[in-house]
């Protein structure tokens, strides 16, 4: 198992890099396609930056104009599906989230990604009134990143329990969970008084506890199942004769011909 390294500053400093690893850069091209050029010209006032990436149009917008831009994309440019929407955590780097909406035009077979930056603590406008699919996507974004969404009909956690604390997809959230997460089921079912009885989670899959005589036994120091741990008396092991092979046993006589 690789040694655990604290990942609090994961964005500032890579905690693990392959010697020969090269970060792949996706080439960004000019907008040349006629359809995408028309999309850019329609949205000219709102677009900060636009380029082509892997055959898709990417447009960067201001975080206050996301509803208007997506409405224009839907009603004027034929992007009738919002196939994915979420956020990326750039808090350590810029104290901002990057939000994106992946739009699909089925008739033209074209995709547009709408991207905006959102400072921490700010809310974004919901596009639920345009696309019903945004309902769950925005709830998931709220659940995983804590980004609040204005005008959402039912902004509630969708994956984690309602009484959960913390937002697991933030880069600062530990993979094994924080204090709250590690005791969640014990606190909820039995109460905090049971923490001592049940004990902390075992996060090491190769953990060996020699004092646990129910699940482990040491050769030569065997005690009865569940008995007291014994570190003193070593008992010689007696092997059964039937399992020993006698290599000096004389070979049986082989007859040359059948009698």
């Amino acid at each position, binding site marked *: 198992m690789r040694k655990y390294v604290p990942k609090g500053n994961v964005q500032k400093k890579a905690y693990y890099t392959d010697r020969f690893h090269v970060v792949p850069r996706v080439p960004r091209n000019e907008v040349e396609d006629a359809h995408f050029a028309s999309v850019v010209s329609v949205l000219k006032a709102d677009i900060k930056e636009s380029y082509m990436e892997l055959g898709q149009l990417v447009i960067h917008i201001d975080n206050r104009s996301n509803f208007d831009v997506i409405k224009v994309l839907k009603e004027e440019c034929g992007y009738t599906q919002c196939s994915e929407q979420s956020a990326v955590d750039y808090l350590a780097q810029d104290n901002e989230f990057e939000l994106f909406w992946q739009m699909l035009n089925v008739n033209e077979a074209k995709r547009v990604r709408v991207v905006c930056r959102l400072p921490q603590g700010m809310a974004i406008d919901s596009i639920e009134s345009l696309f019903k699919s945004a309902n769950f996507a925005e709830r998931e974004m709220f659940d995983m990143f804590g980004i609040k969404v204005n005008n959402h009909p039912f902004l509630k956690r969708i*994956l*984690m*329990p309602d009484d959960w604390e913390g937002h*697991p997809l933030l880069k600062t*959230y*530990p*993979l*094994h*969970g*924080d204090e709250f*997460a*590690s005791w*969640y*089921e*014990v606190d*909820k*079912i*039995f109460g905090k008084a049971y923490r*001592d*009885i*049940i*004990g*902390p*989670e*075992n*996060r090491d*899959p190769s953990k060996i*506890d020699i*004092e*646990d005589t*129910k*699940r482990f036994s040491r050769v030569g120091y065997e005690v009865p199942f*569940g008995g007291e741990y014994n570190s003193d008396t070593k008992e010689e092991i007696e092997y059964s004769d039937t399992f020993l092979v006698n290599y000096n046993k004389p070979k049986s006589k082989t007859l040359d011909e059948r009698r």
Partner: protein
Amino acid sequence: MAQHQVNYASTAGLPIALTSVDKLVNWGRSNSLWPLTYGLACCAIEMMASGDSRYDFDRMGTIFRASPRQADVMILAGTLSKKHSEFARRLYDQMTEPKWVISMGSCANTGGMFNTYATVQGVDRIIPVDIYLPGCAPRPETLQYAMMMLQKKIRKESANMNKNTKQDLTHQTGKRARLI
């Protein structure tokens, strides 16, 4: 020629069988173990296969019941997420005594490969387990073997229910602790 009356007296002398109450009760309990129809993840697919005609749990008197009130055994088949742990425990509490638990597969035993914030690291943190069945996922034959081992265990224990209700949960810290 069909015999209309079993002739007890001619074979064993008298129509009497001698046994103890423990043995009689445990004979009944172990030969009609009714598990709860309760699947959590992919192990549940193997559990369903065990119940179907190829592997045929029914021949062992094991019939899946849809209600915890009618079930004796809880087979925790799959990954138990922390969100769901409350409901798993509630189902366990709703089962009538005596009741037994089989933890099926790596995820239920230890959390398995889901070493994350959202997975219960072993169902024995919330429910006392009788049989731990390793595997990812265990074959239906091994689930049936686990059920047979559970039958063996039941036949050995006392029919007095009070003894069955309290089970140790000491493995985590090594402390002597009881979870009812």
